[in-house]
């Protein structure tokens, strides 16, 4: 291990003074197995550059050495796997975004065994030129069966980072905000907007992705009010912080801009401290903002120019060189060549020179640059070569020289000899691309501006303003004045007009509005060879998309920019093409002979930068992922070893195994105990809707297919509900509780839909009806006792007369059961004598336990949903959604007895089921099936054919909907829908299975047990 002193000495590229780093707080970190040191205030990227690290990754396709190119979220190359332990691994973090902390461990996501000696690099050299756009489509398509083999190899070789294999130890959460004005970005424009909006009295939220506010002012050579710009920033921040109506957020990226001014912000709360959150803190927080007005002050990203070998480490974007020097006191090389198409590029040479290192030359693509910065460069003695370009970078592991040549006025071809300049850094500037991404998320298309050579925000229907770099603003002065106006307008639109006496003045800047871009429209720099023969000219570094590749794509016939994007993968990386997209579009436009405005841009969608899945999930994980609903007797089921199944959100006991019983053994025992003695089912989950009002009875008649006019108080009736199309939608028993009072039950899964169905008809079609609906599903605990001994059991717990004469089938009675007030319904879903006991939910567990105390000598057996299914199928009772699928009329189910065509009102479903197609008698109809081999198992979903010897494709005539082993009947039974099934009773159908086996079955009635219905009426 090296000691602190040795580590400090490694920082060859660190300046002795300056920058916004804290030299008193040294931090050690580990990159690719090497120990290094940086300072508090560094990003991982600035610390790597300080330590002289050139190669930070290997390219995706060709394995080429790549270095740090930018200083922000637009970085395509410096992508790291971070984390000191397995559970804290995070893939694909940009080194330019990651604040340095003590003990940080990282390595590049590409490169094996290391980035310095990479095996893919060799492949790249041998096979790289063969890997053209569409390579995968063209090469690995045939034979198709081999794709899975190819894919494994490609994924391993390509991989961008990896997920942790252990659970994340940290917590994440969400937070909601409602503000008058949300300001995105805290550079000069954003700060000014926030200040003016806040002074007008608006509540303001201002968020910035960086570790501190300031934006471009963090590395600007400009002065504000005659002082360093960060002094002004500090004053602004102080005033905003003192205002209780202002929320300031750093390390908070506004990643999505959604409809009606809804924004999502991903805040990284502890990623700058350690790789796991401190006690009591959440690691990431997703903020959800609903704002009256939005001000976008997102700035712009500088574009590099495209030249040969422009991916060599040492090739950088010009402003990022200034950024490293001025903000981090890091100078990323020894000898600099600048190539620029505009005035902006000069500042980086001036900053470089001030550090005492050598500026070899500024190569200006323009013939006659005349801005104030170019004058200043000349005064400083910097060599300026005009009307020329760097056509190619030389070097192997880092830039060692720049090949310079003069160009014609249009910048399309060379007009003289080349000249080689020795250097280790080439900084280029091709102008600025406004960060319009968020402005596009709500569907607004950006507009190409010839003035600034970039896309600017287009029209919107949102209450949105933009200010500064996003509009193409170049000078600090412009940003400040635009920010002021946007802030005032945004606040005004949210109801906060300018308050007299608190006006905001625009501070004076050294260069005022003099700074102008004056850019020459040049994107791809010409080479002495044609694009396809020149060394590679990279457009999208992360996806290894070259200028030659894009040209080939247009030659192959792709014209839409969206198609070019997908064919070449331009802009598909984690950087989403923030540096490369405009250059790529310019190359497409040129090769198609169109303008960039005509070619247009691809659509920007959320998110602006990658967001962790954990932040998206927040606290909604594990048990909080989705609500779970439990019956009041759930604890008893748990204590008695129930296995559960999920029915919607409900957890229902599936079966109750005893000892070592298998599921099959348990449900056989449950079936026989219920058929021969008495069993009990927890039916609390059934949907229950309380319906009251003087028109309640008429309403039931309209929504059910059968008649309700004569149902007496104290009686129950099975009801079938259809949609307007005449198809069965839900079923259940409804009870008449009083002349104007009914209790409707629905299927467990259909409860919410049925309530909504009743409400929409009442509110939109028949508002004159006096009827009220109330979901009471959770108010009642429901226990169904079934079997010949159920009357004997109930008699032990209640005083009411249970004789068949006094309490008949389909009656209900109020009763006291085990001392608890109850409603008892004598209805049956098994075909046996059965009572459904309803008690208030909070008495549910007590009543359930009382049943078992009383039922001991009757061997009362709890049964679950599986046994319930078998018992109902033995009696041919349907389950809507299992035996029906939205294409079955009541007649298809042979439930014509439940349709009353004599009702005066044309009930819902009546007209629909009388369409000619529904009246056909040869539709798919519900029938029973008995397999010839009584133990042959028909899988649910098996397709039926009439002739098993018909050549494939056979004519399919239906399918199995339910299939069980009936312990009571000692054979397997099934229900199916079969074409013309009702008229084909006794005929055979065949079920060819995927195994090759063919099962033969006979069509029969679905009522397998007690066709005369004697058992339930005893």
């Amino acid at each position: 291990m090296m000691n602190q002193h040795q580590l400090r000495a490694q920082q060859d590229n660190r300046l002795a003074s300056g920058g916004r780093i804290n030299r008193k707080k040294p931090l050690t970190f580990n990159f690719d197995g090497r120990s290094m040191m940086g300072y508090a205030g560094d990003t991982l990227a600035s610390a790597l550059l300080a330590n002289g690290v050139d190669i930070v990754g290997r390219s995706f396709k060709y394995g080429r050495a790549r270095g740090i190119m930018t200083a922000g979220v637009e970085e395509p190359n410096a992508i790291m796997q971070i984390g000191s332990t397995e559970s804290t691994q995070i893939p694909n973090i940009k080194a330019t975004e990651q604040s340095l902390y003590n003990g940080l461990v990282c390595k590049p996501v590409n490169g094996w065994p290391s980035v310095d000696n990479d095996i893919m690099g060799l492949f790249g050299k041998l096979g790289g030129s063969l890997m053209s756009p569409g390579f995968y489509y063209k090469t690995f398509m045939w034979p198709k069966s081999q794709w899975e083999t190819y894919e494994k190899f490609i994924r391993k070789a390509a991989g961008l980072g990896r997920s942790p294999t252990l659970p994340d130890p940290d917590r994440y959460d969400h937070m909601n905000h409602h503000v008058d004005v949300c300001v995105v970005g805290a550079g000069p424009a954003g700060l000014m907007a926030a200040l003016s909006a806040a002074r007008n009295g608006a509540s303001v939220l201002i968020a910035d992705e960086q570790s501190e506010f300031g934006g471009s002012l963090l590395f600007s050579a400009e002065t504000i009010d005659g002082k360093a710009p960060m002094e002004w920033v500090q004053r602004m921040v102080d005033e905003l912080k003192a205002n209780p109506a202002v929320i300031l957020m750093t390390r908070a990226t506004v990643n999505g801009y959604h409809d009606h001014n809804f924004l999502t912000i991903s805040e990284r709360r502890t990623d700058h401290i350690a790789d796991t959150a401190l006690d009591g803190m959440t690691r990431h927080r997703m903020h959800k903002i609903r704002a009256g007005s939005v001000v976008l002050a997102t700035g712009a990203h500088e574009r590099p120019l495209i030249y040969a070998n422009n991916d060599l480490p040492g090739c950088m974007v010009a402003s990022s060189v200034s950024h490293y020097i001025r903000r981090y006191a890091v100078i990323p090389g020894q000898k600099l060549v600048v190539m620029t198409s505009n005035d902006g590029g000069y500042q980086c040479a001036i900053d470089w020179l001030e550090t005492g290192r050598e500026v070899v030359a500024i190569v200006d693509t323009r013939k006659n640059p005349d801005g104030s910065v170019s004058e200043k460069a000349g005064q400083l003695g910097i060599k300026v070569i005009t009307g020329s370009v760097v056509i190619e970078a030389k070097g192997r592991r880092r830039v060692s020289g720049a090949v310079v040549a003069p160009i014609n006025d249009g910048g399309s071809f060379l007009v003289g000899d080349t000249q080689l300049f020795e250097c280790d850094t080439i900084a280029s500037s091709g102008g600025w691309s406004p960060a319009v991404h968020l402005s596009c998320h709500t569907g607004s298309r950006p507009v190409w501006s010839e003035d600034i050579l970039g896309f600017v925000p287009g029209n919107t229907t949102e209450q949105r303003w933009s200010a500064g770099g996003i509009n193409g603003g170049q000078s600090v002065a412009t940003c400040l004045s635009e920010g002021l106006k946007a802030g005032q307008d945004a606040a005004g639109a949210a109801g906060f007009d300018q308050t007299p006496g608190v006006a905001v003045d625009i501070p004076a800047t050294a260069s005022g509005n003099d700074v102008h871009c004056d850019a020459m429209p040049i994107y791809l720099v010409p080479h002495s060879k044609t694009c396809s023969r020149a060394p590679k000219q990279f457009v999208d570094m992360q996806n290894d998309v070259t200028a030659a590749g894009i040209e080939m794509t247009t030659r192959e016939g792709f014209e839409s920019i969206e198609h070019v994007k997908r064919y070449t993968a331009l802009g598909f990386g984690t950087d989403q093409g923030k540096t490369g997209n405009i250059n790529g579009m310019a190359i497409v436009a040129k090769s198609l002979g169109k303008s960039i405005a005509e070619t247009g841009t691809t659509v920007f969608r959320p998110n602006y930068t990658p967001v962790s899945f954990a932040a998206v999930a927040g606290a909604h994980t594990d048990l909080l992922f989705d609500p779970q609903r439990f019956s009041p007797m759930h604890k008893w089921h748990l204590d008695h070893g129930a296995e559960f199944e999920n029915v919607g959100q409900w957890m229902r006991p599936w079966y109750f195994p005893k000892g070592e019983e298998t599921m099959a053994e348990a449900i056989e025992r449950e079936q026989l105990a219920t058929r021969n003695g008495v069993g009990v089912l927890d039916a609390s989950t059934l949907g229950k809707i309380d319906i009251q009002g003087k028109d309640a009875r008429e309403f039931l008649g309209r929504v059910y297919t059968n008649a309700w006019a004569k149902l007496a108080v104290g009686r129950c009736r099975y009801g079938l509900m259809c949609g307007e199309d005449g198809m069965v939608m839900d079923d259940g028993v409804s009870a008449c509780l009083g002349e104007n009072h009914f209790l409707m039950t629905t299927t467990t899964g259909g409860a919410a839909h049925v309530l909504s169905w009743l409400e929409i008809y009442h509110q939109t079609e028949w508002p004159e009806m006096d009827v009220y609906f109330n979901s009471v599903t959770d108010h009642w605990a429901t226990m169904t006792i079934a079997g010949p001994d159920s009357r004997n059991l109930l008699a032990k717990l209640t005083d009411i007369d249970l004789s068949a004469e006094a309490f008949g089938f389909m009656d209900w009675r109020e009763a006291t059961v085990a001392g608890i007030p109850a409603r008892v319904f004598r209805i049956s879903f098994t075909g046996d004598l059965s009572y459904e006991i309803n008690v208030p939910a909070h008495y549910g567990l007590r009543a359930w336990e009382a049943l078992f105390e009383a039922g001991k000598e009757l061997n009362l057996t709890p049964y679950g949903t599986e046994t319930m299914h078998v018992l109902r199928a033995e009696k041919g009772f349907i389950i809507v959604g299992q035996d029906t699928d939205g294409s079955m009329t009541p007649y298809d189910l042979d439930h014509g007895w439940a349709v009353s065509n004599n009702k005066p009102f044309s009930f819902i479903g009546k007209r629909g089921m009388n369409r000619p197609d529904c009246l056909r008698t040869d539709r798919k109809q519900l029938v029973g099936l008995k397999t010839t081999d009584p133990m042959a198992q028909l899988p649910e979903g098996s397709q039926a054919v009439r002739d098993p010897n018909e050549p494939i494709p056979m004519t399919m005539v239906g399918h199995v909907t339910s299939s069980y082993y009936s312990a009571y009947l000692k054979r397997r039974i099934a229900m199916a829908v079969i074409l013309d099934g009702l008229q084909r009773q006794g005929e055979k159908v065949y079920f060819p299975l995927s195994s090759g086996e063919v099962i033969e079955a006979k069509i029969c009635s679905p009522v397998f047990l007690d066709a005369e219905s004697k058992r339930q009426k005893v």
Partner: protein
Amino acid sequence: MFLIYCPYCCEHREEDEFHAAGQAHLSRPLDPDSLSDDEWAKYVYFRKNPRGEHRELWVHAAGCRKFFNVARNTQTYEIYATYKSGETLDLGDKPEIGASGSVLNLRKADAPWSSS
């Protein structure tokens, strides 16, 4: 994510609380049995799917459970107005698409973020 004004609760609420329930202003025929199959099919199955202004039925499912009408633009996602079921609304004076603040004008009065 829409911000929707419930005309019954008289408050703006998040889209999470609402469900869309299809095209608005469809009346169930008073005498379905007298309709031809074609006429009935039109009522049951045929719906508009315009690009631009549209009237929809929404329900405040996690709120008052009332159904109401929404006049909105399916292209820009602007909501011009919401109004109770049974009511009609003439959008003759509707702001032009793209006019600044057209969504907000309808909701400013009781904007939930309003600090006053």
